[in-house]
Every structure is written in structure tokens, then in C-alpha cells.
């Protein structure tokens, strides 16, 4: 071969081997699996307005009073800028921690601001909790299915995740007990149980109140810490606020909270309420990660809580999401083929859909994107490849009209898959397992 005669190019060079990543042999073991993924690439299409995305969990920010917030923000910079733009405490500002205690009081939590650590979203709080408790190979219990962001955090610390079944009333205590006993028989004690008791992501169910006591009792008996993740607790549609598990057991529960769903996720303000000794380690871990949470966004949240009708804003969110939940449930009932079942959330953002036996929601995602509808395949919410018959549908961001259109498209995709199944029988295409989901900004 030669390139002579092509005035666009210089002459050939000697052969070279191209290793595009010269650091390949240096990476830690925990990076295994951090590769490009077909599924994640498909979510790039979901961000286009032509696609009805039922995938992302983005709060509906148009419901916020942006103009008055802008005025408040300008005033805040003028009057408090010297502190808001300066380094702050690793634990977070005292004022915000006091206000967080008032928010948690709505769920029956009596807490002292000293035990609150402000974090960069509750995701960081979860990361810190896992960092201080988990060595590689340690066991963490989680619901089946569980929040994909938690599973990726546990994986990054090389923890082994054991998932415990749920039903319409949330985590099943009998299954939890069986899992604890099975692990005990192996001489293993889980480091903690990670649970989302209210309006679960992705399952859309809520743990029955009486079960919460049973779960706390079982964990206490087995000396297993409970990590209660509660981003959606104030977003119920039936006027009911469930009591936090932390309210019943202050000594054995780490509570994770967030302003991402009740205010705005772009601020990245979350928190952990932990027993005193745990809190001390959390603060040191957080300090090594970020020095301190952003003072600026803490000041924004503080001012918002102090000067806005934030509870009224939560009610507005509840109304928006309830209307959209209703639209989704009605559309699912009207359009989906027989054999599909789904949860009926009483709050939060998500419906958990189970498709007919033999269909694979991950394998059919390309067809869905072709039909311009997107969802998150169920396998994203399991650490072990389960969930192939499930998908998570979000009703938080698209309008009701778009939700109905999205479900109509989804129904057509399912019909196509059933047609394939009639031809080939139940076959499961080879797909990569693991928590592959959209990036947070993919609606």
C-alpha cells in the first residue's frame, strides 16, 4: 500500500502499536466494568425532544417560582456573599443543619443539628457511609430491585450486594430474616441494610408501617445497621407523611435526606443524620472528599426554607406528580397488552412495570428508541442480572399528554416483541448485566 500521489498526506511512518489507554494496567480492580455501553449510549437519544423519555428521574422544575428565586438569589449574594462564597465547615452550615432538623421533624424525627452532616446530594452521603463501613467483599443488603445509584456506589467499594424481595408493601420481613439467617450460617454479617421505605425507586411501593418495626427489630437482632434513604418521603399523593424509620431507632439508623426532589437537584444539597459516633467519621470522610459542601448552595437552600412557602411548593409538586401518575396508570391500563402488570405508587416518581413472560426489556430498548420512547430496563436495578422482565417508568418530567403518547408507543414496542416471541419462542438475547442506567441529566 502506498499513499504517494495523495497530496493530502505526508509519507508513511513505521508501524506503531496504538494502546489508546497507556494506564490500562494501573487501574484499581474496582474500575472493572467501567466501559462504554450500548445501553447508556441509547439514552443519549432519549434526551432529544422527539423521544418521550420515561427514563430519567428529573424533577419538574418549571413548577418552581424561578423569578422570585432569582430575586432572592441576587439579594443573598449582595448581603451574604462574603460567607456564601467562602470555604465553610465540613459538616455544613449550622443554620442549614437546624433547618434540616425541622424538615425531618415532619416525619417524626427528633434530631440534633450536631448529628447532621450536609453533603453534595444524598448520593455523596451514601458514598461516605459505604466508604466508612465497607471493605472489599463485605456484604450489603438492599431491596430487590434497588436504586441504581446505590448499586454503583456499593460496586465501587467492591461490596457484595445481597438483594431481598419486596412485595406491594415493600421489603418482606420474612425474606429479610431468611437472608440474614443464610448469611449468618456462612459466618457473615452484612454491614448494613440499604432501604428506600417511601415511594421506592424504582419499585414505586411503600413499606407498610408495621413492617418498618419488624425490619428494625430484625436488623437490631442481627446487629446490622439500617441506612434509610428517603428522598421522596414528602412527595406522597394522599396527604400522608410516613414516619421515618430513624424516628423509631435513633441508635441504629443512618437517615439520608435530600432537597433534590422537594426543591431542586441542581443545588446538590443532601444530608446524613447519623448516630453521634458514626457522624464523626462521616464528617472526616466528607472532608477528605470535598473539604466542605458548597457554602453557596447551602445559603440558597437556607434562604429558600426561611423565606419561601416551601411546604406550599411541595404541595404544588405533589399535585403535578399526582396528575401525571394518574395519566400514566390510565394509559397503561388502556394500551398495554395482556400479561403486563405494574405497581400503583402513592407518591414519588416511578412505576415498576413487569412485561409478559419471555420478553426482555433490555434487549428491546433499541426498538423502543427507534419508536421514540425510552425507559430504564429492570436489570439496572439488580446486581445479579435479574429484572429482565421489568422496567422503570418515570412520570415526573413529561407532561400528562406526553406520558400517554409514550405509553402508546411503548405498547407498540411490546406488541412487536410479542410478535417476535410468537416466532422464536422465549429466548433471551445476550446482553451485559449490571447497573446501566441513564446519566442523571438524561430525561
Amino acid at each position, binding site marked *: 500500500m502506498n499513499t504517494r500521489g495523495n497530496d493530502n498526506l505526508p509519507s508513511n511512518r513505521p508501524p506503531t502499536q496504538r494502546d489508546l489507554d497507556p494506564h490500562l494496567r494501573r487501574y484499581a480492580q474496582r474500575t472493572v466494568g467501567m466501559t462504554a455501553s450500548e445501553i447508556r449510549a441509547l439514552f443519549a437519544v432519549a434526551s432529544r425532544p422527539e423521544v418521550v423519555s420515561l427514563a430519567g428521574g428529573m424533577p419538574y422544575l418549571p413548577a418552581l417560582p424561578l423569578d422570585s428565586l432569582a430575586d432572592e438569589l441576587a439579594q443573598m449574594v449582595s448581603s451574604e456573599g462574603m460567607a456564601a462564597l467562602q470555604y465553610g465547615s465540613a459538616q455544613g452550615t449550622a443554620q442549614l443543619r437546624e433547618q434540616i432538623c425541622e424538615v425531618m421533624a415532619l416525619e417524626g424525627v427528633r434530631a440534633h443539628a450536631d448529628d447532621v452532616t450536609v453533603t453534595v446530594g444524598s448520593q455523596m452521603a451514601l458514598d461516605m457511609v459505604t466508604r466508612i463501613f465497607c471493605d472489599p467483599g463485605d456484604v450489603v443488603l438492599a431491596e430487590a430491585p434497588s436504586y441504581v445509584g446505590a448499586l454503583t456506589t456499593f460496586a465501587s467499594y467492591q461490596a457484595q450486594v445481597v438483594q431481598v424481595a419486596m412485595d406491594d408493601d415493600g421489603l418482606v420481613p420474612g425474606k429479610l430474616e431468611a437472608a440474614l439467617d443464610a448469611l449468618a450460617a456462612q459466618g457473615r454479617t452484612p454491614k448494613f441494610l440499604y432501604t428506600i421505605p417511601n415511594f421506592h425507586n424504582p419499585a414505586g411501593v411503600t413499606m407498610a408501617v408495621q413492617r418498618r418495626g419488624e425490619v428494625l427489630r430484625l436488623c437490631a437482632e442481627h446487629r446490622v445497621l439500617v441506612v434509610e434513604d428517603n428522598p421522596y418521603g414528602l412527595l406522597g399523593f394522599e396527604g400522608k407523611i410516613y414516619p421515618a424509620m430513624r424516628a423509631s431507632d435513633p441508635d441504629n439508623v443512618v437517615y439520608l435526606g435530600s432537597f433534590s426532589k422537594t426543591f431542586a437537584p441542581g443545588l446538590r444539597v443532601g444530608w446524613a443524620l447519623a448516630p453521634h459516633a458514626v457522624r464523626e467519621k462521616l464528617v472526616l470522610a466528607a472532608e477528605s472528599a470535598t473539604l466542605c459542601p458548597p457554602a453557596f448552595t447551602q445559603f440558597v437552600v437556607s434562604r429558600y426554607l426561611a423565606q419561601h412557602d416551601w411546604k406550599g411548593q411541595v404541595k404544588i409538586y405533589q399535585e403535578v406528580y399526582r396528575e401525571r401518575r394518574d395519566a400514566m396508570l390510565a394509559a397503561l391500563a388502556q394500551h398495554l397488552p395482556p400479561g403486563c402488570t405494574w405497581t400503583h405508587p402513592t407518591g414519588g416518581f416511578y412505576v415498576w412495570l413487569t412485561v409478559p413472560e419471555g420478553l426482555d426489556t433490555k434487549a428491546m430498548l433499541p426498538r423502543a428508541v427507534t419508536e421514540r420512547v425510552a425507559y430504564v430496563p429492570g436489570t439496572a436495578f439488580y446486581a445479579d442480572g435479574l429484572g429482565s422482565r421489568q422496567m422503570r417508568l418515570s412520570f415526573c418530567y413529561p407532561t400528562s399528554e406526553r406520558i400517554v403518547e409514550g405509553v402508546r408507543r411503548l405498547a407498540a414496542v411490546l406488541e412487536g416483541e410479542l410478535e417476535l416471541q410468537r416466532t*422464536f419462542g422465549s429466548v433471551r438475547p445476550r446482553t451485559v448485566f449490571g447497573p446501566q442506567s441513564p446519566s442523571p441529566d438524561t430525561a
Partner: protein
Amino acid sequence: MTDRTVAVLAGGLSHERDVSLRSGRRLSSALRDVGLHVEEWDVDATLIDRLTHRRPDAVVVALHGGAGENGAVQSVLEMLRVPYVGADPRACRRAWDKPTAKDELARAGVSTPDWIVLPHATFRDLGPQDVLDALVDRLGLPLIFKPPQGGSALGVHVVRDASELPAAIVGCLAYGDSVLAERFVEGVEVAVAVLEGSDGEPQALPAVEIEAASGFYDYAARYTAGLATFHAPARLDAAATAAVAELAVNAHRLLGLRDVSRTDAVVSPDRVAHFLEVNVEPGLTETSLLPMAIESTGADLGTVYATLIERAVARAW
């Protein structure tokens, strides 16, 4: 360079949107480095309005899959008489549809693995097992299944055991209504880019040899640095080197391509070069093969594409 304004089209609605955005960003940066004014445009319902009112001096289509490679966008550019880099719509259509490209090249005597295209309806109407039995009788194993149209190895499955056939076909049908079943040829996998010089003559760049760590150059291997090793030029002897270069130039000529193309081929142990497919809008990401081929000659991406842009402007209506 000139003070031309160039619109780089990237993104779109195909399954390869993410790859296209990365190609577009890299190309845009390279073109800015050589002094061009570059605008990066996603392709949506505002495209015609933008082309009409902002009127770039030329367009480079960095779209992968769908409208960017099947000639649809090129037809719009022709209608609006906007100069663009790359093949015309008719040639795009020939190259985009893998069976059509294989058919044209096979008729011209180019070696390409035996293949059969099977729509879902054939399996449905005739019964899958009978069709699969006939397929294996005809082509044998191993087989590779591909969506007839598409790139980035999306929906592509290699089958070495007959029991894997239904799953591979169902996986492939997630990307379209038909499957291209092709005899899988073991050998050295190479990509050969072709560039046209100012005289319009297509010239092959050094072949890039691909060694996927997993043995299969799938989506993850294509777009995760480190999951494949590349050799540029490929470690082929003189005869095979000449064979793959000739194959790529033939593909470019026979399909009527223009400016740039990238042919994927495999060299079997008997040193025969087999045509697999050709791309009219080759990937330009950090892990893509055309930039590697260009760099292996000591050239740079921006200069090469700037020259192609000048050619596009010069041949404009």
C-alpha cells in the same frame, strides 16, 4: 487556512447519536485548530432553516447511522445547494445498505463472505427452525448476524453453536426488521480508510489492524480506550497489505463514493482480503480508526478535512 464557516452536523436521532456527538466534537476542534470557523449543529426540525439563513460555506456530516449515512441529509444539502464533504445520496444509499454494497462488490469480483438476508417475516411465515436449518446448511458455522443497516456493531452477534442462533437473531432484530447472516471469516481484522487527493484519485491510507481484548470488536471495545489494541499500519505482509488497500479503493470506486470512506475487511489465513462493509461517514472519536490511520501517516485530522472542505466548495453548484 481560510476564514470559511463550516457546519459540522452531529447527533441526530439514530442509535449512534452519542458516538456522532463525540465525532462531531473532535472534528470541530481539529478544524478550529487549522483556522476554520466551525459551528456544531445537531440535526433537528430547524436544520433547513439554519442551512438557508446561516448558509455555511460547507457542511461536514459527522452523523452516524440513519439519516446521516443513508443519503437523507445529503439529499437535503443537494436540494439547498450547500457544499458538503462526502458521498452523494445515491452512493450513500448503496454503501449504507450492507447487502447492497456486498452485492455490488461481489458482482465486480471482490471477495466478500457469503451472506443471506432474512426478514423477520420469513422466520414467522416459514417456521424458524426450518429456516435456521437451511441457513446453517447453506453457510455453515460460525456465522455473524448484523442489522443490514447500522454501525458501531450495534445488534451484531457472532454464533458458533446452533443453539445460540435464535437469541442472536432476536438481538439483531431489535435494530430492524431483517438480519444479515454472514459466514464468519476468522483472520486479521483491519480497517482501511480511503482519501481522495486534489486530483480526485482515491488512495488507501495505511490499514489499521484491530485486536479486541475480548476477541470481538463490539461496542464496548470500540469506544472504551484500552479494550482493543491497534497496529497502524497493520502487521500484514506486502501481498496482504496491497490486497486490503486495493480492496478499499475498489469499494470506494465501485460504490461511487467521494472524498473519504472507510472499509472494514478481514484477511483470512490464506491472505485473501474479504470485504465486510464500508462507511461513508467514518467515526472520528478518540478511539476511531480513521483518525488513527491519518495520524499514522504523520498528517492531522484537521488539515485532511480542511482539504476535503476546499474540494467540496470547489465542486459546488
